[in-house]
């Protein structure tokens, strides 16, 4: 499941886990139960899921999540190790402008 670290500030109660594989999710229960998300998440008791905190990080390292855990969160889920959303750029027109094909009239 990738890297796993214990948070010394929490006495080892919380385990923060991350994987270098995109879309792999590690869910760690506050009682020390380690569950892989996906099928396990769906079947997990509501009180466990409610303790999950999604931490957005652009780093594959669990450092940011670890800091959040040390700040008092009880359970940490690292969703995607690299949650950068890449966006396509605009390609600027260089030639002659044709007649409009459609309207953006707003809603």
């Amino acid at each position: 499941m990738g890297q796993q670290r214990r948070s010394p500030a929490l006495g080892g109660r919380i385990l923060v886990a991350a994987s270098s594989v995109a879309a792999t999710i590690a869910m760690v229960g506050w009682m020390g139960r380690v569950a892989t998300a996906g099928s396990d998440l769906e079947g997990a008791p509501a009180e466990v899921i409610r303790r999950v905190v999604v931490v957005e990080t652009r780093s594959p390292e669990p450092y940011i999540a670890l800091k959040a855990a040390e700040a008092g969160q009880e359970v940490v889920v690292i969703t995607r190790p690299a949650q950068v959303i890449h966006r396509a750029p605009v390609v600027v027109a260089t030639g002659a402008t044709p007649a409009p094909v459609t309207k953006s009239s707003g809603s």
Partner: protein
Amino acid sequence: MPEVRFAAMGTTAHIVVNGPETLLASARARIEDLEGRWSRFREGSEVSRLNRHGVARVSAETEDLVVRSIAGWHHTGGRFDPTVHHAMIGLGYDTTFERIAAEAAVSAPVAAPGCGSIEVSAGVVRLPDGAGFDPGGIGKGLAADLVASEMVAGGADGALVNLGGDLRAVGAAESGAWAIEIEEPLAGVREVVAFEGGAVATSTPLRRTWIQGTERRHHLIDPGRGLPVSAPPALVSVVAGEAWWAEVCTKAAMMIPRGLLSGLLDDASALVVESDGSRVLVNDMERYLR
């Protein structure tokens, strides 16, 4: 170029393809498929299930929609906010726009809770208590992005998908650039933008208006107050690489101080028409105007 228009997502869809005409039918089916997942007015949609139960297992497309919505909320400091769902309902926009009662019932405004506590993992979305999710414009934008890209992947040289003003063009038009007219007659706006690939999203408080009590309402909601944005510009039109992002920027631009607008528009440009008719061009918008 072959094209088709039809009603979808509470507006008019317009698809143009530089390629096989047969791609229009599959594009239309895909838009209807996405509407079936994202409509807040269809009982069986993934978004309706999410709003009904507070948690739902969703498709990859819907998870992507939620993740991008959260990203937009973060980027705009909460000005773009898909959790205005309950505020919309409180204002009377509780059914498709065509069916809103002539005079919607009056109720207290509901501030949007924001996206900070939405949980997304492994195809499961969980909303915080009291939150609802309204894909609104970002759903149209992302649908335009997905369908235009899929049409090019399916063999088109280029495709343009326009969902009520949220549009995306991928690949080449027959004559090179794609030209799009930005029009709002009430605001006196008639402009043409052109690019060889990109997106436009346009919003105006002058359309989709209704009466609630003694107040005229519009659909552009200030999340913090749960009420329509007060004194908004007459029109904001944003050019960006992708339509979902253009939509995020457009909504946020409706309520951000003008001095902060340039910084908000990350990789995007804007035309803002103020209510007095004055125009502001932001981040080299001149590059696209013809």
